[in-house]
């Protein structure tokens, strides 16, 4: 390589950095940097009226799992926190599973339409995707609440005599999350199926494979990156959900996001809130790293 070429490459890299710098600065100030503040706050002592006192303490972290009994001065398991963690993980996994079971046929359906119709169906998926999450959650509320359309319809048809009390239950949160996150599953699945070579199906049929066999042994392994991408895209926001459980869980059926908010509001325990936030971030990071590993592994094979 000539010195001139080398200089040019250096120049190009410098320009690349300079052009990206303003965006990096803003993101450091208002997105990544502030995460360090949470780390700091999680190791401080909580103030009696919220906020923090500037002295070191691990109370924020330990109180995720244990609470101090003020009468006996002994530590007991924080059952409420564990129940909320368990609910969050359980509902997020259920949401991921149901959106896959419904989303896979939907993505397959879109991908196998003729090109013009495909654009139309894709557009129909995109509209709910971009519609305000709060509005979609409220739309579900309109359907499932006690005097909502679902109960009205079922009572009109004589199927039930008393309205179903779905709202403010785990089931309500589950229905809501499945509804709001379904497009997040369909879009990456569609992208993967779209690249799928349909001639492989012809070949499989020629070799007398059954439909079930083809689905399991040919289609699913090939679109696996799309399945993983969709699952991550649904699981991550489900786990950190705040709006949906707040509107459909009515403040009683909390998820991690609501528990975090509580610590900065009425709970007045900022260090605990900070520690909970980092715990959530940690779980999400593990999920994302798993995704990167699997996605890179796929690239090497393919």
């Amino acid at each position, binding site marked *: 390589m000539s010195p001139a070429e080398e200089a040019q490459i250096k120049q*190009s*890299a410098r320009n*690349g*950095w300079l*052009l*990206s710098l*303003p*965006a*990096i600065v*803003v*993101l450091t100030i*208002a*997105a990544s940097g*502030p*995460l360090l*503040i*949470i780390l700091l*706050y999680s190791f401080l002592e909580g103030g009696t009226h919220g906020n923090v006192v500037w002295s070191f303490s691990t109370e924020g972290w330990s109180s995720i799992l244990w609470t101090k009994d003020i009468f006996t001065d002994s530590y007991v398991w924080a059952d409420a926190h564990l129940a909320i963690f368990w609910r969050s993980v359980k509902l997020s996994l259920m949401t991921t599973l149901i959106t896959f079971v*419904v*989303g896979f*046929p*939907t993505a397959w*359906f879109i991908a*196998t339409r003729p090109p013009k119709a495909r654009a139309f169906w894709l557009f*129909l998926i*995109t*509209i*709910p995707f*971009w519609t*305000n*999450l*709060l*509005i979609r959650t*409220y*739309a*579900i509320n*309109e*359907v499932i609440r006690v*005097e*909502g359309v679902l109960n*009205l319809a079922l009572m009109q048809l004589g199927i039930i005599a008393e309205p179903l009390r779905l709202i403010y239950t785990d089931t309500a949160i589950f229905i809501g999350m499945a*509804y709001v996150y379904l497009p997040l599953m369909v879009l990456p699945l569609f992208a993967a199926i779209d690249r799928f070579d349909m*001639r492989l199906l*012809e070949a499989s049929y020629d070799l007398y494979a059954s*439909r079930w066999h083809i689905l399991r042994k040919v289609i699913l392994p090939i679109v696996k990156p799309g399945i993983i991408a969709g699952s991550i895209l649904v699981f*991550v*926001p489900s*786990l*950190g959900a*705040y*709006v949906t459980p707040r509107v459909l869980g009515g403040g009683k059926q909390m998820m991690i*996001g609501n528990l*975090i*908010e509580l610590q900065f509001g009425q709970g007045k325990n*900022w260090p605990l809130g*900070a520690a909970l*936030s980092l715990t*959530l*971030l940690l779980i*999400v990071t593990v999920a994302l790293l798993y995704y990167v590993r699997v996605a890179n592994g796929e690239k090497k094979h393919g």
Partner: protein
Amino acid sequence: MAKSSFQVARLPGFSTVALLAFLALYVPILTLVVYSFNSETTMGNWGEFSWKWYERAWDNQAVKDATLRSLIIASFAAVFSTALATMAALGTTRRRSFKGQTFIYVMINQPLMVPEIVTAVALMILFGLIKTITGVHGLGYLILAHTAFCIPFAYLPIRARLEGMDLTLETAAADLYASPWATFRRVTLPILMPGVIAGLMLAFVVSLDDVVITEFVKSAGQDTLPTYMLGQMRRQLTPEINAISTGLLVITVVLLTAFFLLTRKKD
């Protein structure tokens, strides 16, 4: 050949599930829209078609203020984030991969990976400290926060446009003795424009829709339309919320349709 592949691609029951999924996606939204025109307050009671709740929302000063605030924040955040994203996209495409490029990608996409509630709490603490120290309140904090999380959304279509661009055009311009700046203004930017406008619209919609970060960052009396609605849902539900939702829904659909038409031109 194409026809036979559609036959092969048929899997039993898939179309039924898909059509039911579309139905499930649209029934709640349509319910919300239909009941925004109900003259009665409760759902079990259909009075007659009326614009009453739209009028009530229109006359509601809190709704007007929140709408104006939402539009101001979304406009600033969209313009700032698109400007930053355009520069970053120019910096990270069409050149030899350089040291630190992965770091730039991770930074730009970071808002998509960190749960919103975590960023919201972090910003609440940071901006709270700054507010106490400087005594400066105002919409600046919200605009800054929105700008940051809009960057990856603005970046996406611009980068896609740049990657699909014909490099020979710029070489041709340079061969004709155009200065680098003239080449950028007269060649690169016009070709890039649909991507920039698409980015601008996505950023605008994303900012307009934000609930969680705004809810935590805002000072008292700084409600945007979504946080105002969230507050109302805690109290009682009237079709006024349906009317406001339908309004927001219309804005989203119009912008999205424009976005689709704009990005389709490419092929």
